[in-house]
């Protein structure tokens, strides 16, 4: 069933949402657009395509306090947050959260096959209501179609929204989404014509994407690629900043640091990047990933081999952020294409 919300009544819908949830939505334009807590629809940038910073920071902030301590006493923040609702996430970003969830969500974990849950992630992500918006005009850097996905992908979304000229057409994807949409009364219901409109927009959006690279071919090559000299050539121009990893919606590596004084302070978890020498550099001075090449390789191998080996999915959703943010124009698509061409 489709709920139709006329854009000039969006305010009313937003009030219902805000009554139940802490609402996050895209803000800002030009540089530095991101998802942030919003109080009113005036703050929201409804036209934005992909935000510069990915929405992973809502659930996995760049800096997160694990606990505070005073003398030897550990204090956990026991406050229960109001559940989050995220308006206007792109389908690729919604999918990327499901990938991070494979790491931080519930999973049987080696070596004991005990169930691991990351309380910081789960307390935010599990109850969150995610509205993803179908991508009407994918950018030239988009390549979501490589990953059996597309601009109207519904994975990771609770309520899927299609943005037409006049309306937001909403459809519940998950149980959570259904429950919420039941609360949204007083709005029009979608008719057949709306469904046709959705199909039309979807088709048009998909036509904007370039032809996908055959990732099966990649899987065949990547087994043997580790020692291949192609990495020298590919990594030559990389300057090993962390821009790609920090704006990536799926990169989730982190560091744990203590801040404050011995008597009182906090233990924090913060984003780290495999691009930094410090990431693997040991106190003894030894660094298994000493060269720029080693770190460059780690990032791509993690996305296209190591993560798939362990979690049956590529750690990339094709959002294209790293392509336009890279100061030296390292294009992840070119990297994959060149690797595929390496006959082992």
């Amino acid at each position, binding site marked *: 069933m489709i709920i139709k919300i006329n854009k000039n009544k969006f305010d009313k819908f937003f009030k219902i949402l805000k009554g139940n949830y802490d609402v996050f939505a895209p803000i800002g334009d030009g540089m530095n657009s991101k998802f942030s807590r919003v109080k009113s629809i005036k703050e929201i940038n409804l036209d934005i395509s992909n935000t510069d910073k990915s929405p992973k920071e809502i659930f996995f902030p760049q800096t997160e306090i694990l606990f505070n301590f005073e003398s030897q006493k*550990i204090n956990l923040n026991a406050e229960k947050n109001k559940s989050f609702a995220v308006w206007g996430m792109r389908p690729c970003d919604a999918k990327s959260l499901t990938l991070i969830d494979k790491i931080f969500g519930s999973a049987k974990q*080696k070596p004991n096959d005990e169930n691991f849950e990351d309380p910081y992630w789960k307390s935010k992500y599990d109850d969150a209501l995610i509205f993803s918006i179908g991508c009407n005009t994918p950018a030239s850097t988009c390549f979501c179609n490589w990953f059996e996905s597309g601009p109207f992908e519904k994975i990771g979304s609770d309520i899927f929204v299609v943005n037409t000229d006049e309306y937001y057409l909403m459809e519940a994807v998950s149980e959570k989404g259904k429950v919420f949409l039941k609360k949204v009364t007083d709005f029009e219901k979608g008719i057949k014509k709306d469904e046709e409109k959705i199909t039309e927009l979807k088709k048009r959006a998909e036509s904007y994407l370039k032809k996908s690279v055959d990732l099966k071919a990649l899987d065949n090559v990547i087994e043997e690629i*580790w020692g291949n000299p192609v990495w020298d050539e590919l990594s030559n121009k990389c300057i090993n900043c962390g821009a790609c990893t920090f704006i990536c919606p799926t990169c989730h590596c982190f560091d*744990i*640091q*203590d801040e404050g004084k011995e008597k009182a302070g906090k233990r924090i978890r913060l984003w780290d990047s495999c691009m930094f020498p410090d990431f693997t550099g040991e106190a003894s001075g030894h660094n298994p990933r000493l060269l720029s090449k080693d770190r460059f390789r780690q990032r791509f191998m993690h996305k296209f081999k190591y993560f798939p080996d362990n979690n049956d999915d590529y750690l990339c959703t094709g959002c294209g952020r790293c392509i336009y943010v890279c100061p030296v124009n390292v294009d992840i698509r070119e990297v994959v294409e060149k690797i595929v061409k390496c006959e082992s």
Partner: protein
Amino acid sequence: MKNTYIPVPMKVENIITEDPNKTLRTYDLSFINSEDRKNFKYMPGQFCEFSILGKGESPFGIASSPTEKDFLRFTVNNTGLVTNEIHYLRKGDNVGIRGPLGNWYPVEKFKGENIVIIGGGFAFTTLRSLLIYLLEHRKDYGEITVIYGARNPDLFIYKDEIAEWEKRDDLNLHLTIDKKADGWDKLVGFVPAVVKELAPKAEKTWCVVCGPPIMIKFTLPVLVQLKFPNDRIYTSLERKMKCGIGKCGRCNIGSKYICIDGPVFSMEDINNISEEI
């Protein structure tokens, strides 16, 4: 929901300085809460994150054996921020640990057969755990051979215990140092060379190697030469770690994470990893 990031409070019971330069110290910790002690079940080869509030965490192999109920033992080399802080600890101080983490030496598989333990330097920690465990269940196992090397006589850890082990007749202990030293009447030579010379029999035998990377690198081929099958050689690997639970993404070698797929790997596992160790 269990929060794996919270360390369990521990108390420093005893500190032993292992070498004259005082860079190696052994810490015996006890649980402050009896509940935590009950829940803490481990096997030789596992490790813990040692936590000093205000400074951070560092991973160390557990040097005590699960058969030693009263304490948890760690031997710490002073190299970085956290280890430096650990060296300031005094008896009675409070610290924290997270663990036990990682996998362990497959002692069940070893049952009824011979075991060769090869160690180098202060990486003998988890090997001590293993050895104590084996000696505690002595009748379950066949011949036990230990080859332990250090740069010089001062750098052996657990010297008192070594003296005890030397007296035992159910254990073949070979100590070696890199270069001749005054008053040293035991073996001289690098561990790989000594292993080659002693040539332990490969039949019905399991081998466990742990030491600095360079020692592991040269010892493994010697064992292959001695006809140890790949699935009977075990080693323990090391990388920089932060979370210890396979999340933070830095300790992988290929698609294996040292902290959850290891630290104990068989030679066979290692050969299957595409990345070089």
